[in-house]
Structures are given as C-alpha cells and as structure tokens.
C-alpha cells in the first residue's frame, strides 16, 4: 500500500480529485455545473430515458393491476374475469387515452388563450433522492423552453423550469421550498406567495405565505396565480386551501394548499413558453 501512495496512479487520482474540487467550486460560484458535461450526458441519455420511461409507464399500469387483483377478487368475481380479458388491451389503451386527454386539453387551452405558446412534454426522469418531486422533461431549448417558464397540466400549476439543455429541461415543483409563485385566493382576493415547505411536502401539500392577519380565506377556497412579477400568466389554478394558520412570527397568516395536480406521479405536462398578459 505504501508503494501505491508514491505511484503515478495515486498522483492521477489526486489530480482528478483536485479537478473535481475545481468543478465544484466553479459550480458553486456560478449556480450550476458547466453546460458541457450535462449537455453531453443529456444528448446521450435522453433518448434512452424516453424509451425506458415509456416502457416503465406501460409496465407500471400492468403491475399495478396485479398488485390490486386480490381485493378485486374479493369484491367481485365477475369484475376479475372482465379485468383479465381487458388487461392486455388496457396497457396500450391507458397510455393512448392519457396522451389523447392531455393533447385535447392543450388544444382547448390554445383555443381559449391564443396568446399562450404551449409545449407539450413527457416526464422522463426523476431522481431517487429528490424530496420535492422535481423531474426532467423531454423538451428543451430546441423546442423553445427557457429557464423560469411555467409548467402546468390541465388541472393546475406544477412548477417552473430551473435548467434547460438542448433536448431536456429540469422542473422544480411547487412543493420545493425554493419555488415561489405570486398567487391569490379567488374568493377573497388575498395575495400571498405559494411555495414548498419541507414538512408539508411530505403530504404533497404546499404553503401560501404572507397572507394578511385579517384574511378571510378559509378551507375550500381556490388558489390561482396573479401576474405579479410576470413569470406566470394570471388566473392559472394552483390548488385548494386546506387550512389557514398563523405564521410563527404572528405577523401574518399562511394557508396549507392541496395542489390540484398529483405532482408525485404526473407524467405529461405543458410548458408555457410565451404569453402576453
């Protein structure tokens, strides 16, 4: 072992370590890693990620039905037979139906808001260590996606783009404490900031902070975006107020918000790349 520490190999390892430390310092100072390695890996991996995501989506639906088959048997033998016959067809059908619904909703939105440029995207990557359900989509700079673009589904706001490559983009969800969106409660008009909270994110909820102390907002109120800051179009649905509580400082209130979209398992999203509000 002593020989190893005086060998060329050890010097190479130390060199690599110093290089990585330099990369880390650069990334910490500039907010992100140099674009080259990310874009290279993205260019190589994204086609495979698209493929594996499609296969996984199909398999997930198939396996899920098997997991729940026991309860189905108990509930109704007739339904079980019907399920068995339709299972193979359902795998393809579910995927096509979901895509069809998403595209129809995107089309309706385009007709309703012709000023909005919308890019449809599939979720192709989620990291195991990601606590706020951030994900990677299969559309990037080539498709007009930019950093800070807002990401939605037909149900509501999902998050915003935080990083863009040529053919992919990374999205931070509204469960992330680093995401803040100016919103208001539609009934009372109280304005606050919707963003993530570590505790609430574990129950797939987010927080609407900085509500006035005398807010009349209550459980059941709808939360929608305002155009404050110009990042999000006005009037996008975000979620529904579950509870209104005082902030720790006692100076303002905050609302616990149930997002309309199931952010943990969303598979297709829309990116609004331009709007004129």
């Amino acid at each position, binding site marked *: 072992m002593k020989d190893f520490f005086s060998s060329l190999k050890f010097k190479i*390892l130390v060199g690599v370590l110093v290089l990585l430390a330099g990369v880390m310092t650069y990334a910490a100072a500039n907010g992100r890693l140099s674009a080259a390695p990310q874009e290279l890996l993205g260019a190589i*991996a994204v086609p495979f990620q698209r493929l594996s995501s499609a296969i996984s989506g199909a398999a997930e639906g198939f396996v899920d039905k098997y997991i729940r088959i026991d309860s189905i048997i108990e509930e109704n033998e007739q339904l079980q037979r019907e399920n068995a016959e339709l299972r193979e067809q359902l795998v393809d059908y579910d995927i096509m139906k979901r895509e069809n619904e998403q595209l129809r909703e995107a089309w309706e939105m385009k007709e309703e808001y012709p000023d909005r440029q919308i890019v449809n995207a599939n979720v192709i*990557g989620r990291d195991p260590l990601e606590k706020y359900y951030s994900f990677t989509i299969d559309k990037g700079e080539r498709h007009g996606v930019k950093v800070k673009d807002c990401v939605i589904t037909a149900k509501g706001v999902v998050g915003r783009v935080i990083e863009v490559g040529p053919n992919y983009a990374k999205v931070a969800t509204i469960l992330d404490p680093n995401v803040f969106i100016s919103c208001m409660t539609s009934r009372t008009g109280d304005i606050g900031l919707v963003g993530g909270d570590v505790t609430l994110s574990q129950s797939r909820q987010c927080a609407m902070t900085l509500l006035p102390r005398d807010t009349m907002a209550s459980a059941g109120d709808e939360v929608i975006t305002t155009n404050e800051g110009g990042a999000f179009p006005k009037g996008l649905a975000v979620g529904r107020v579950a509870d209104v509580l005082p902030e720790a400082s006692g100076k303002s209130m905050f609302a616990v918000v149930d997002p309309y979209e199931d952010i943990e398992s969303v598979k297709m999203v829309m990116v609004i790349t331009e709007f004129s509000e």
Partner: protein
Amino acid sequence: MDARKRMLIQVARHLCYALSLLAAYVLQTTPGFLSFGGIKPVLLVPLALCIGVFEGAFTGALYGAAAGLMWDIASGRTGGFFAIQLMILCFVCAVSVTLYLRGTILNVSLLTGGVMLLMCSADFLFGYLLHGYSGLGRLYLTRILPVVVFSAAVTFAPWLLTRRIAEKFVPGD
C-alpha cells in the same frame, strides 16, 4: 496472446462498464422504475462500488468519480458534490476488499449501505439541515433511510453484472 488483443479486451471491458453506468443512470432516473411507495434505489453507487471491488482501487476510484458526476447531474446537486465523495469512498471500499474483506455479495451490499448512508447524510446535512427547515427528522426516517436500505438491497444486480463483465473479458497473461 499478443499485446493488441489484450488491449482490445481491456477496451471492451471498460466499454461494458461505461455502458453499464449509462444504463444505471437511465434506469435510476426512469419515473416509476423499481418505485415502491415513492422510494427508488440509487443504482450508480452500488455499480461503482462493484467495479471497484472487481477492478481495484485505482479503476474503482475513477469510475466512482464518473458515477458521482452523473448522479450530481441527475439530482441537480452542485457539480462534484457526489463525485468527490464517491471517488474517495470507492477507493476506500476497494482497498478494504483487497486487504481485509472478501468481495462477496453480502459484503458489497453492506458496503453499499454504509456508503449510501454517508453520502445521503452529507446531502441531508448540506441540503436541508443547515438551512434550518423544520420537520426534518421525519424526512430523514421516511425518505432517506429507505433509499439507503433499498439501494443496498439491489446491490446483487450490479454485482452479478460486474462479475460477469470481469470474468468475460480477461486479458490473460
């Protein structure tokens, strides 16, 4: 066996390892793949450790750095954060197996568990604890520890794959 053929075998072996890393990256980030209750395993770490066990400390450390960099990119962490840790830990694990341990599935799984625990705890410390968020104890128990255990549990797959590659491409004398 002539030198050219030996070199080709070496190149083929490392090409297989590189493709394995790419496959692990793709599978690790695939939504829903091996996901139970929202918990997914990290595949890059056990694969890098297995390569270190079969190839030795030097090669293991280099593949550890590469796998760590890929994980940095996948998880959106500061570039080099996981790379430096995994490079050092792969080196230490490979040396441990060379000097003290046998490279069995069980030992490598335990090493994976230990390495994952260290790396995830470091990520937890710098990413969450130092920011002073509340409710972190539950997050650590319900999200981080299960990922550590799950990653250690699936180590057998990278171990079998790496052993297969190491045995298939032997340069000979």
